[in-house]
């Protein structure tokens, strides 16, 4: 251990990438080191808006050109450069810079000096702010030639060729293929989010045919659970939740959108169509119901229902969130940075930000009814109209009995006990507390309607009983939230410094000058539909790269571009730029077919490698950027739940539908303004997949939050994976997981009368593989200990044994 201490110390001091520990001080990089200094301290006065003394420091060209006082820098002679003198306050020509605000630190001055002394360099793209950018991600996607590799036997296709070539450059070899049980468990978890059954593992392990794996993949891609697994990834980005957020956080109905996502992915809707439906489905000619539902993507924004709010302020926030989300999800750009000022690093002006804003600023936000196909086929809508007409008729008839009703109501009110009073809904209680005559019309109706629903009233008035029964029979139609373009567009202005109360110049819809131009049918007006089509136009360099990179991230734990939401100049560079372009080009070539791309990735040898840590790789490539092995990844929050339910044999496999309420610990809503309705399901809904759990933004289902599910407030393109004691407490003690242990115990007991067989069966249900000999010994010790502790009561003993297995790191990890 002592050997490593100095090395670790060096990391602290260096503060650079781990790989760079042993290296010399890195060369000063204009974009990384220099430009941010000027941006932070200088460009407010020496930038695009103002050029004090004729000097511009926002682009390298300006720095090289100098200003009214002559050259700002002298190559190789930092001490004699006016720029350095001015910053140090030693110049006789100009006063110390910057005149206000924080002075530059000695480190920053040293960096500038080193940059100048080394002969100042900047990439061409940084020379000038122009409509052209030479940044890699803005360049057209061109299919790169396949690299030559030394070991042509290893690659199964293009993906492997790119990976192997990069490994060979570092004199590394890929890892061997994972064992078959590991492989089937990995790919099942990645594609459908459920573990394979022991029979499936056995069949695959024993299948000697050359296409055994490919057939497995075809089966998984055809499974309806594939849409659930990849739909949940998409819902992270859509910031899906079942409540409105902010202060009150009332419930909302938008699960039809979730259902649409699952369905669209399962039927293999091409990604370009998938995009257009969600961004502008309402603007397509004669949109289908599904296309309207799809626009729910941008209705997942928050709504503030607190009293006394300025509704426009929160509508603006929602539109801004739509801009930012679209930027992250499709373009991999941090558009949000340009809301208050022109982007400091990327070619995005504040005006361009508000051009995007204008595109998304013209919709109304209605709610529509979405009858299912079954409901339409069996005439539910017509039946509902009939029922409603009948109710109306009966109500008119009842109205003739008003004097009797009021008398009976007052008699009822006189008999309400304090306990009953306490159970009245809040506003009804307020009305109840007032004298009959003092109530206003609204309060009168409120309490009358309440009374009419009571059993006492229904017994006194047969008509009310009839109405009550009809209401019960009235077909219930789900609703969902959609976008609808306004006939008359809103005007959009630049918000000065991001403040919507301080409007600047008027803008109309448009896109970034550095990107390919946008086609639009309507002369002069770019619409949201044009924008949607532009996002997935064949010449858009960002969308296919960003989408493929994100999917790669799901399969390997890290994107080829690690900053999956930032393809700008501050983002990380691709580890395998040619591979990324190959994937992006292939994606378009295959008609934006996501399943085809997933098949190519999981069928690669790169994907199939073992995830075991190798000492040579750990030394040469500690972050595994070169992918000389697969990654061991903790399962996503929902999948942690799904796996436990599946192992216990409890899982209800129903696809889609409204959100459900599995049991959760007591007291979750003590810490919110309003207690939320949460009646734990007792039937099959108790054991639905985690993605269907009702999600309250102000108090999410604790298990999901503990395992890093996103909060649904802003778009999430990558989940963090934490590893905490609260996770341990959840797996160990949460009722939902304990039920899984109990169910697994029953499966184990039913499987065999022999303890060793039972233990091995439970182990294989959890991990797909067989135990090693050391693990067998631990298992038998565990069985002996718990049998003894429970005095031989098998259900108790096996529940405890299974609880251990469900808590293993490997059970909640895909290897």
């Amino acid at each position: 251990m002592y050997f490593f201490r100095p090395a670790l110390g060096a990391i602290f001091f260096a503060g650079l990438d781990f790989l760079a520990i042993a290296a010399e001080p890195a060369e000063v990089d204009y974009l990384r080191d220099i430009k941010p200094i000027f941006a932070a301290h200088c460009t407010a006065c020496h930038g695009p808006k103002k050029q004090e003394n004729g000097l511009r420091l926002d682009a390298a060209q300006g720095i090289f050109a100098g200003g009214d006082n002559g050259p700002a820098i002298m190559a190789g002679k930092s001490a004699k450069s006016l720029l350095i003198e001015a910053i140090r306050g030693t110049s006789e020509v100009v006063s110390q810079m910057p005149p206000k605000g924080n002075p530059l630190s000695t480190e920053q001055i040293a960096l500038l000096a080193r940059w100048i002394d080394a002969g100042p360099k900047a990439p061409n793209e940084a020379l000038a702010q122009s409509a052209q950018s030479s940044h890699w991600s803005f360049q057209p996607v061109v299919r790169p030639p396949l690299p030559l590799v030394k070991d042509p036997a290893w690659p199964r296709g293009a993906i492997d060729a790119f990976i192997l070539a990069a490994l060979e450059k570092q004199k590394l070899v890929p890892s061997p293929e994972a064992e078959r049980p590991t492989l089937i468990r990995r790919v099942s978890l990645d594609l459908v989010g459920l573990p394979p059954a022991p029979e499936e593992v056995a069949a695959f392990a024993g299948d000697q045919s050359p296409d055994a794996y490919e057939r497995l993949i075809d089966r998984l891609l055809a499974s309806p659970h594939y849409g659930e697994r990849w739909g949940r990834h998409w819902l992270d980005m859509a910031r899906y939740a079942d409540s409105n957020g902010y202060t009150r956080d009332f419930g909302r109905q938008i699960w039809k959108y979730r259902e649409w996502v699952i369905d669209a992915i399962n039927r293999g809707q091409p990604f370009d169509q998938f995009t257009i439906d969600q961004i502008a489905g309402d603007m397509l000619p004669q949109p289908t119901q599904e296309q309207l539902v799809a626009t729910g993507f941008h209705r997942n924004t928050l709504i503030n229902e607190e009293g006394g709010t300025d509704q426009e302020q929160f509508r603006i926030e929602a539109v801004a969130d739509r801009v930012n989300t679209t930027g992250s999800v499709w373009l991999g750009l941090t558009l949000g940075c340009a809301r208050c000022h022109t982007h400091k690093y990327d070619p995005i002006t504040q005006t361009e930000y508000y051009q995007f804003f204008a595109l998304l600023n013209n919709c109304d936000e209605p709610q529509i009814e979405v009858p299912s196909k079954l409901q339409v086929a069996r005439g539910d809508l017509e039946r509902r109209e009939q029922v409603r007409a009948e109710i109306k008729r009966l109500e008119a008839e009842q109205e003739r009995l008003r004097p009797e009703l009021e008398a009976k109501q007052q008699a009822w009110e006189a008999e309400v006990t304090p306990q009953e009073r306490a159970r009245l809904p809040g506003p009804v209680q307020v009305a109840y507390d007032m004298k009959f005559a003092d109530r206003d019309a609204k309060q009168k109706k409120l309490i009358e309607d309440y009374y009419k629903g009571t059993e006492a009233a229904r017994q006194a008035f047969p008509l009310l009983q009839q109405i009550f029964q009809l209401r019960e029979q009235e077909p219930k139609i789900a609703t969902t939230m959609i976008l609808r373009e306004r006939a008359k567009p809103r005007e959009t202005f630049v918000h000065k410094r991001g403040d919507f109360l301080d409007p600047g110049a008027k803008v109309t819809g448009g896109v970034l000058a550095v990107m390919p131009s946008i086609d639009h049918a309507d002369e002069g007006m770019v619409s949201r539909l044009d924008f949607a089509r532009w996002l997935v136009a064949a010449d858009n360099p960002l969308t296919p790269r960003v989408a493929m990179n994100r999917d790669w991230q799901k399969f390997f734990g890290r994107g080829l571009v690690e900053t999956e939401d930032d393809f700008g100049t501050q983002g990380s560079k691709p580890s395998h730029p040619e591979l990324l372009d190959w994937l992006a080009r292939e994606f378009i070539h295959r008609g934006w077919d996501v399943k085809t791309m997933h098949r190519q990735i999981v069928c690669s040898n790169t994907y199939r490698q073992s995830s075991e840590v190798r000492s040579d790789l750990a030394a040469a490539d500690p972050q595994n950027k070169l992918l000389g092995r697969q990654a061991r990844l903790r399962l996503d929050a929902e999948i942690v739940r799904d796996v436990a339910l599946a192992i216990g044999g409890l899982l209800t496999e129903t696809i889609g539908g409204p959100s459900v309420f599995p049991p959760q610990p007591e007291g979750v809503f003590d810490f919110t303004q309003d207690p939320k309705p949460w009646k734990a399901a007792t039937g099959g809904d108790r054991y639905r997949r985690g993605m269907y759990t009702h999600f309250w933004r102000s108090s999410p289902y604790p298990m999901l939050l503990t395992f890093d599910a996103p909060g649904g407030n802003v778009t999430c393109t990558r989940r963090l994976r934490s590893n905490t004691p609260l996770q341990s407490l959840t797996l160990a003690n949460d009722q939902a997981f304990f039920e899984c242990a109990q169910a697994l115990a029953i499966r184990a007991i039913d499987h065999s009368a022999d303890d060793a067989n039972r233990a091995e069966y439970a182990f294989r249900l959890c991990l797909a593989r067989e135990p090693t000999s050391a693990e067998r010994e631990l298992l038998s010790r565990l069985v002996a200990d718990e049998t003894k502790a429970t005095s031989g009561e098998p259900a108790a003993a096996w529940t405890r044994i299974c609880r251990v297995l469900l808590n293993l790191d490997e059970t909640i990890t895909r290897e």
Partner: protein
Amino acid sequence: MPTNPQSQLPNPELLLFAARRHFFQQCRVGLGAMALGSLLTEEGAHAAMPSPSVADDPLAPRPGHHPPKAKSVIFLFMAGGPSQLELFDPKPRLQELSGEVIPESFVASKRFAFIKKDAKLLGSVRKFAQHGESGQTISECLPHLAQVADEICTLRAMKTDVFNHGPAKFFMNTGSPLFGRPSMGAWVTYGIGSQSRDLPGFVVLQSGPRGPRGGGPNWGSGFLPTTYQGVPLRNKGAPILNLDNPEGIAAADQQRFIGAVNDFNRLRFAETGDGEIATRIAAYEMAFRMQSSAPELMDLSGESAETLALYGCEPGKPSFAMNCLLARRLVERGVRFVQLYHTDWDHHGNKGTELGESLDKICHETDQGAAALVLDLKRRGLLKDTLVIWGGEFGRTPQGEPRDMIGRDHHIESFTMWLAGGGVKPGLALGKTDDIGYYGVEDVVHVHDLHATVLHLLGLDHLKLTFRFQGRDFRLTDVHGHVVHKLLA
């Protein structure tokens, strides 16, 4: 413990090393190493290896950017917005003008939640006096606080940006009015970890008729790892969710359970070499410790009758006062950040929300506990290391609100908070408001400044405590904030 497979298990030293190495290799981007990277490279003097290692515990304590004045924070969050004009800020001129329409110059470009621009000014009926040697002005509503006047530092010209409860609460807690940014407690534990080895680093308690508006995101970790989110501590049932063993599992069973899980995990670690497994082993051990330390924390039987009387709390009866006592017990045990919410200070002027009886009631609920906390910390020698913060998301308007009874609307231009201990000047009254208490006119402290100052007291530089998310280095103070040097002791 099984002994047979022991020979195959890596020794604890190797585990620790692997976990540590893993932490730095795998977590360079995104996780705690970002904090380490930025914290530990700035100041060579503080670049020593933190101990115990952050590797197996991202909550392990670690040095900040400069030597701290405070080690822990207790934030008494008065949810709803207490009226500074009834509690701290007497305004004779407002008294004189009571009933007149507020001069337009004050409200020309202002937005309010409920009142109109022609609302009438409202004087306060509360009596004020100066207390202690410092002469802090405090009203009759807070007699206990008046007794510790010389210990507290009042900020009488606080300012915030947003005037609705939810957004304003997020703003006070996260520096942003939007839902879902990391809260101050999360930033702090991300920056310097926690001293506690067996309790969460950031704990939230709640009292009053209901939870605070906005709920969980007030103490959320936002884009920081979930490790740093506040953990609610409950007054009834198990204090932490899932703390109790399932039915039929005794403590000894649980110990065997943890041992067995970790035995398997050690084998798998030896097989795969994945440091994440070492971290999980440590997490299970800490979870087990938490199961005994949290109930011990909640058990007040060791507290003297005198202490209970000082706070005015009765064991078994949840109250703000009891939460104050628990807060002291939490910081005693090394917990870094404790936040108490008490609802509801939203005195608009309806029945139950007026500035008469309703204000009396909530003052009575909170005054003794808050003052006792300061006294108790002081006599135990904890106050110098503990920063106590008292205040709500905003204050209340000099204008009255035309409802059934006497009340005021939300006011963001000026309100009062107080701090105590943790390197803050005791007895200081900082900041002044204008004649009618509308604007701060001297030593205005904006919420961003308060955040910068709290971080400063904890040894953190608000400009350097950053986290990269969506292409940008985020800070608690966004692009604002100045340390308020005048209030530093």
